[in-house]
């Protein structure tokens, strides 16, 4: 039972497996059993995860099980809603069924954030050149995902849009290339430079505004097993009309902010501490402020050139 790319299976088989909860997604370090109940999330999954390795059948073990389902068995007859259910009594908020792709993506994020302890997880995007990685820390309104998507166009490979996944032994980051989540204005920006077919249809009126996803490329998935050593971390700040600015920040502050952004640092304990301290050793951290995607790319490329040759 070896995993094959999703698109290599008969479509009908894949759909049947998704609906019966017998499809296991093998992505990066994690296997996730996925069960979907509505057409929209199935279509989204088949499209966005087409290049990902999956197995069908009920024999595969998985780290996580995710069900996107109606909130309860009665309600499905009344209202069209779904919730992501990562299987440990985490009742996230119900969403209208039209937003089931969001529920799916939220559920996959929750699974990693709350159930993974084999790696230290930090809330950040990660891209890499070969085996050298750049961490883009998440800051509200900072434009992490837009910057991540823009760097993909510059030839960087995507490790993850949502999490820096730190190996506890060797201070390197693992790939988990899932769709990059784009909000509001950045959707059209990314459609502009990545091409229409690289971005999913837009979900309007979600709790976070409009959302669309930029798919990981086949190359990102093929190279996901190659770990990358982080060299630079940026804390992005998008400010309308701002002149590009860049300021080095103290690694002690960086450590503090990364710990605060980690859902599992406290649980893992000592190995997360030593892992993080080892990772930071020799890294450079910067706060960058910009008013346009071009400026952000220029800032990052300058920093990268001066520290990583």
């Amino acid at each position: 039972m070896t995993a094959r790319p999703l698109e290599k299976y008969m479509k009908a088989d894949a759909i049947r497996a998704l609906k019966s909860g017998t499809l296991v997604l093998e992505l990066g370090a994690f296997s996730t059993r996925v069960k979907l109940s509505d057409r929209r999330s199935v279509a989204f999954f088949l499209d966005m995860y087409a290049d990902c390795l999956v197995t069908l059948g009920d024999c595969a073990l998985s780290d996580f099980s995710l069900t996107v389902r109606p909130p309860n068995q009665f309600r499905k007859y009344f209202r069209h809603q779904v919730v992501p259910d990562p299987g440990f009594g985490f009742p996230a908020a119900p969403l209208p069924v039209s937003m089931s792709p969001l529920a799916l993506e939220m559920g996959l994020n929750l699974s990693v954030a709350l159930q993974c302890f084999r790696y230290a997880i930090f809330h950040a995007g990660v891209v890499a050149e070969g085996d050298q990685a750049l961490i883009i820390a998440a800051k509200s309104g900072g434009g992490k995902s837009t910057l991540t998507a823009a760097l993909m166009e510059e030839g960087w490979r995507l490790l993850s849009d949502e999490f820096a996944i730190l190996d506890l032994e060797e201070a390197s980051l693992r790939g988990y290339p899932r769709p990059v989540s784009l909000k509001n204005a950045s959707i059209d920006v990314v459609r502009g430079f990545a091409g229409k077919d690289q971005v999913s249809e837009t979900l309007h009126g979600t709790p976070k505004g409009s959302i669309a996803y930029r798919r990981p490329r086949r190359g990102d998935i093929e190279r996901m097993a190659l770990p990358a050593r982080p060299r630079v971390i940026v804390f992005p700040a998008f400010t309308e009309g701002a002149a590009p600015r860049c300021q080095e920040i103290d690694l002690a502050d960086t450590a503090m902010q990364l710990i605060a952004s980690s859902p599992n640092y406290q649980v893992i304990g000592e190995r997360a501490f030593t892992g993080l301290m080892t990772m930071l050793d020799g890294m450079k951290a910067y706060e960058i402020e910009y008013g346009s995607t071009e400026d952000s790319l220029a800032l990052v490329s300058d920093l990268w050139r001066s520290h990583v040759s």
Partner: protein
Amino acid sequence: MSAGPNSDDWVWVVDPDHFIIYEIGDTTFVFSRLSGTTHMLNLVSRAMLDFLTGKPKTLGEVVAGFADYLQVPKEECPSGVVRRLFDELDDVGLVERILP
């Protein structure tokens, strides 16, 4: 709030096996193996940690001797500050009492 009752006669120590340390500039990151929690210490709290590491002292001795250890004049290191500093380490379980 304090970790618990205290007395100037009680003997305290910091056990170096119960934590690990990384330094970044003047900041010391301490991971406590007992609590599983990470703490950031500055130069002064770090000095208190060193002052007690492997060297048991009564609270009275800590209060009396810390200014000298820091090499600062006594008036710059009032006993109230020393006691509070001790309490902060006590609170997070980094100092441990040696029972008589």
